[in-house]
């Protein structure tokens, strides 16, 4: 690292330093943000894809408009997965009970970092799978609307495809919950407990 560039002691020595120095609370919160945000992006994308087709196809075949809201709801479901995950994760972030600027001695750093990284990954798992799920539900939903407009018997068949696409999001949330299950932010120092 070039010290000439970075003479100050507060200067970060590259990304690795940033990432390693980031607080587990930060990681956990980012996990929440990614989980929710990416899910919502996926859902919005899917609704966009479905919605434009749905509206367009409904002009010539108005009967499809309420039935095909199911496709929109499927997309919406991915956002809900994100919200559920976000709530679960948020509930797991607990502030330390100790007061003061520094963590107490004997603080359970293992559990502390485990919880931070775990929740970050759980959020990413949910977010990324939900993006994929949302887009794929959107594409299938778009085709569903168009197909249904021509032949209503196709609706159920394409809906099954949509359900499979939607299931992708569920895989994400299941894995995400399992990932986050073991994450428990320590609220007080373990060694202090032993000492007392």
């Amino acid at each position, binding site marked *: 690292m070039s010290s000439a560039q970075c003479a100050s002691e507060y200067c970060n020595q590259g990304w690795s330093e940033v990432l390693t120095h980031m607080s587990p609370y930060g990681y956990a919160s980012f996990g929440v943000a990614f989980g929710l945000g990416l899910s919502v992006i996926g859902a919005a*994308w899917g609704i*966009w*894809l479905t*919605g*434009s*087709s*749905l*509206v*367009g*196809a*409904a*002009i*010539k*075949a108005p009967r499809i408009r309420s039935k095909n809201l199911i496709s929109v709801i499927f997309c919406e479901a991915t956002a809900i997965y994100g919200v559920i995950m976000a709530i679960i994760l948020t509930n797991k972030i607990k502030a330390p009970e100790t007061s003061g600027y520094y963590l107490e001695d004997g603080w359970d750093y293992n559990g502390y970092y485990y919880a931070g990284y775990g929740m970050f990954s759980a959020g990413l798992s949910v977010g990324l799978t939900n993006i994929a799920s949302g*887009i794929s539900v*959107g*594409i299938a939903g*778009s*085709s569903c*609307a*168009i197909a249904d*407009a*021509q032949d209503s018997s196709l609706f159920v068949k394409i809906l099954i495809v949509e359900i499979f696409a939607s299931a992708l999001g569920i895989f994400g949330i299941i894995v995400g919950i399992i990932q986050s299950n073991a994450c428990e932010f320590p609220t007080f120092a373990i060694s202090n407990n032993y000492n007392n």
Partner: protein
Amino acid sequence: MATPHPTRGTGDLTTFNIQHGFAEALLRGMRSSFLKDADYHHLTQCETLDDVKLNLTETDYADVLADSNAMSPAAFQKVAVEKLVCEFQYLRTQTVEPLSTFMDFITFEYMIENVMLLLKGALGGRDINELLEQCHPLGMFKESTMRSIPTFENSARGYQDLYQTVLVDTPVGPYFAQFLMESASSRSGGSYNVLAEVEIEIIKSSLIKYWLEDFYNFTMKLGGHTAEIMGELLRVRADSNAINITLNSFGTALNEPAMRTSDRKRLYPGFGHLYPAGIANLSDVTDEEELGRALEPFPQYAAVWNIHASGHGDKTIDDAFYERDVQMLELAFESQFHFASFYAYVKLKEQEIRNLVWVSECILQQQKDEIQNFVQVFSQNAPWRK
């Protein structure tokens, strides 16, 4: 030629709908307006045009027919074309770039026809209002521009003016420019000689060629599924144009040795499956036998050619090409997330209108034996679905 460069791509599977999803779904909604097998069946059973009209009122044509007292094949055609144009323009208003440019490209073909019609009418001293009525409504541009085309005096200067002030302003102007330029370089004399001496049909074929090339370039620049599917459609169209021009030139002045390379070769589009090797062969053929040999290396056209060569009484090369076209256009229409479906829609609708006219003409002329000889659109019984 300055093919307009698309401002942005068409988008792919995941992003196409963001810009064009609505318009595309709208277009697909119109698929239900195609006449179905049962409709065709009923239509071919009709005895009079009254019956035809009655049967059509159960289809998508009900509304437009209700407002008109059309009772002849020509009137049915007029109504149907107006409906198509109305739908097309509705679609056009719902589109954004680059789809809107793409749709404009579709109309250029008809614009070329209209300009040629006006020019020829002007040479014959016809009434402008009468001419305007005959123009294809899909190829209309600004009325004041159209009106000013036949007003030019019939002289060399007049045609220069015509090109410089009027045609250059139209979307098809560049094609004229290119045509005039190429003609000027191959012959001496100004644009007057060209417009007055070259047969209108040949000018039109040249312009159509430039248009096809331009359209093809534009499609290639769009990329993605559009380039893939639309490119194929245009390539086949270019090829069938080249084959047809060769075939139909037999027995006309175009087949003269001198004209073969100078004029006929210039009508062949500069792309397609036949280009460049096949085109080179085509430009030398002088009769049907040689044409058949020139097409032999291209299995897809050799098959079509064999239909013509084997002389099936009721099936001509035009029918064979139409059948191929319909098959390809159907496939293009059925796939999603690209622009070719818009082109396919217009062409398939045109085929349907042609069928409608055919059926009603057959009924009118009491030619029941021939009534089945049309290429149905989206038929469950089509040969390629069996």
